[in-house]
């Protein structure tokens, strides 16, 4: 375990969190899914290095980790944009025009489902129900919700994120941080 601590690819805070998480369950591998989620939040996706370290921390094979991860669509093996736009197209949203919004976004960002913009700021994804049926249609950008949308409102939302990304760039932060 000491090697994982000293050579961890995660930040010291996350590394410490994982150390505690592993001890929390009667069976080590129970910590697998939360670990993958936290790791994805920090690194952006489940890279081979992430999978290797998680496997090592939980005494699993990399195959085990991959098999569990591939079951869940919210765990990904490829990077996404700085802002991952997830458009719900389940029944409530669909009835209230989710596909119009999705197509609008496709046109506006110039990318399709699972695509990433050339500057790496946005990625687009069509997803199942995100639990905002009462204010449909809705999208989720990273962990933030934007609901009761029209194409105009979507433009505002995107503009706000683009401006935010611009500020971050100006401050010299990396787009993927």
């Amino acid at each position, binding site marked *: 375990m000491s090697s994982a601590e000293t050579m961890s690819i995660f930040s010291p805070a996350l590394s410490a969190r994982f150390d505690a998480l592993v001890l929390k369950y009667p069976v080590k591998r129970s910590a697998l899914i939360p670990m993958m989620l936290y790791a994805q939040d920090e690194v952006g996706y489940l890279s081979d290095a992430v999978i290797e370290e998680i496997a090592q921390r939980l005494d699993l094979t990399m195959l*085990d980790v991959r098999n569990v991860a*591939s079951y869940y669509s919210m765990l990904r093996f490829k990077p996404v944009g700085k802002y991952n736009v997830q458009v719900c197209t389940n029944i409530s949203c669909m009835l209230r025009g989710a596909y119009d919004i999705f197509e609008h976004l496709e046109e506006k960002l110039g990318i399709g489902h699972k695509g990433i913009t050339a500057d790496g700021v946005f990625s687009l994804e069509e997803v199942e129900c995100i639990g905002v049926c009462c204010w449909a249609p809705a999208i989720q950008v990273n962990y933030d919700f934007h609901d009761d949308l029209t194409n105009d409102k979507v433009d505002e939302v995107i503009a706000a994120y683009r401006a935010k990304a611009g500020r971050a760039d100006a401050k010299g932060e990396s787009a993927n941080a």
Partner: protein
Amino acid sequence: MPDVTFTVDGKKLTAPAGTLLIEACRKAGIEIPAFCYYPGLSLQAACRMCVVRQEKVPKLQTACTTTVAEGQVFTTESPEITQARKATIELLLGNHPLDCPVCDAGGECELQDMTFRYGAGESLYTEAKNHREEQKWSPAVYFDRPRCILCYRCVRMCGEGMDVWALGIANRGSSAIIAPNGGDHLDCEQCGMCIDACPVGALTSDTYRYKTRPWEMNHVSTVCTHCGDGCKVTLGVRQVDDGAEIVRGDNRDKSGINGDFLCAKGRFGFDFVDSKDRLTKPLVRNAAGTLEPVTWEHAIRVVSNKLKEIRDSKTENGGGSSIGVIGSNTGTNEENYLLQKFARTVLGTNNIDHIRTTDYAAFVRAMAGHEHRAASLRDTETAKAILLIGGNPTEEHPLLAWNIRTNFRHNTARLYIATDSPIKLERQARQTLSLPVEGYESLTAFLSGDDSALGEIENAKTFREAVNAEESLLVIFGQEFRGAAIESLVKWGLAKENVKFAYLGDYANSRGAADMGLSPDLLPGYIPVTTPGAFAEEYPNLSTQPGMTAPEMLDAGCRGELAALYIVGSDPVTAYGTDPAALKRAFVVVQDIFLTGTAALADVVLPAASLYEKAGTVTNTFGDIQLVKKAADKAGVKPDFEILVRIAGGMGADVKKLVPFGRGSITVPAVTAPALSVDFVPTPRPIPSLRGIHGDLGQSRGAHSGEADRHAVWLAARGLELRLSPFDPLAALDEIERLVPSYKLDRLNLFAGNDVHSEPGFVPVASLTAPTAAELILPAHDGLFTSGVLGDHTKALVELNSYQESISQPVAEAAAD
């Protein structure tokens, strides 16, 4: 668990409480179909084929996870259940390709059987099939994704059974797929157990795929020719122009000592039989000094004339003692027995030996007089506690490793390991003791109570306490132990109650070679030549002077003191590093399946049959004796047994004295009690009047030899032992049983294809002699894909070996970073 009574389909059944319904039904002859259920592995309940109706339960229940309890009532076949199973099959067939006519599993496919049974051949699904190309995962394993029905058998077999964990399930729902650990390839032990477990044709083997159909082969159950575990392997055999070829090796009926298991060598390592390097014609060195193909008659004449001439020569360099004989580690017991009898009675020499890879003589000497102390391989599956000292079962004894893992998984067996280098079985061990390389003898002293013997080794005392606290113990030790070290270890164990022993050695019949007296100082059954006992009468002209060991024979040959060397299935020149040129003066005869280093310098080379091309018995390293049946056939070769008899005949020896065959030649052994099942009592018959009347009807040859075995069961059960041919190795078995104390065989079991344990405890204590030289032992240490000379000529194993090396390379580099 107490027995409970429950009702299935109106029948009252009784089984221990907690038994799985599917098992209870199978025992009672009620078959419940299942794809995912595999006895011995964890429960999956993934396929929904085993659904049954349980009274008072609203939904259909899976029989593979339902445990039986008092008073339950089940229905296993009804229109409702048939409909449910049919629907399941319809879903499975939704994306299953209809390629049964070309699929390897066609004819032995569980999905095919169920489709025929439930009639789900027609489907309402009209979706297009999602085709994927077949993938090659390793030189041994291919994966055809659309055929897979996601039963998880391979995943569990690989993980739980093999402790390799190379397979998993990736993705979800209809895109779920079996995934190998290397992404697009397998990094594993290449055992092929996943292929065996697969109920359909999703996993196929490189050696068999697209070659033939199951019903076009004859299936011959014989014993694997590779390691010392002696797994039963079923060879699929097909007729070809020059004999019969082996198309497949597998573990078809799972009835052998190995149960479910077979490793890469047993499953894929048979193509040496068809190797281009095979010797198929006798060769005799001509005047020009090169080996020239000749007829069998000529070759036999050359050998027998020359051996006779040397034996009868009165010169200084003549007589029987100037002939040396070296036998084989892979030949049958009968051949080895006959070889030493030929050497001792026809050639008149005790210069007989084999390349010893294991010190069985010392082991048996230590065990002599102590009955029920030698472990069978079967004991390793049930022993409550196992002490493994030295050895590396995972690499060198795959079946032993499988049994220990199974025992650990099913019975939580306690495994204690003492080893000088890490081994994989430590994962199952309760305690592991790391010994220095030279520390094995000290371990015995330490276990016996000498606290200072091991010096300062961590956990040594707790290890000893735990081992000593065991009420029964199975001690398995490796070739690190030889001579006196074996004696002291066995002595330590014999002082305790309920301790059994097993000694790990190489090769399919190394144990048999030692048991059959391929030794200059020991007769069959470890009787010293100095005090031959019954052999004095049986073997005319037996010398009581011990002969030369194999290295001594080679040295004597090099010095010109040995006029002839007769070598059967052995390559001593390579093994002992002898200078080939130095042996020029001796007349060297080599009988082998390949042109080995020794054969290359021989004066006569006789092409022999491999273990897959002959019948007889072999003894595994645990002393379990099994029947070998003839599977393949190769034009031009002869079994060692027949060659020997022909040479003896050519020398003018009385063949009837050498091989007890035909009228008036047999001393029929009394039928031993365990040979008979309780419900069958043989009618005693006047045997002499029947002797020599019946022929073997030709059934002892070729792929139909199973017929002869049933014939033999019938004969044996009636106390009849008819051997009408001098080439029938079982005639020698009669004599072995009569003369070798440890080979008291339960013939009914042996001929039925089961393993029969020999009892070294029957070796008379009076026969104990000074230990043989322990330095003669040359362990082979063959791994998962090597098997001495055979391995070098087996393409499948050579390929697997280089594949394993190529994929382990990057891992080693990554570790170095």
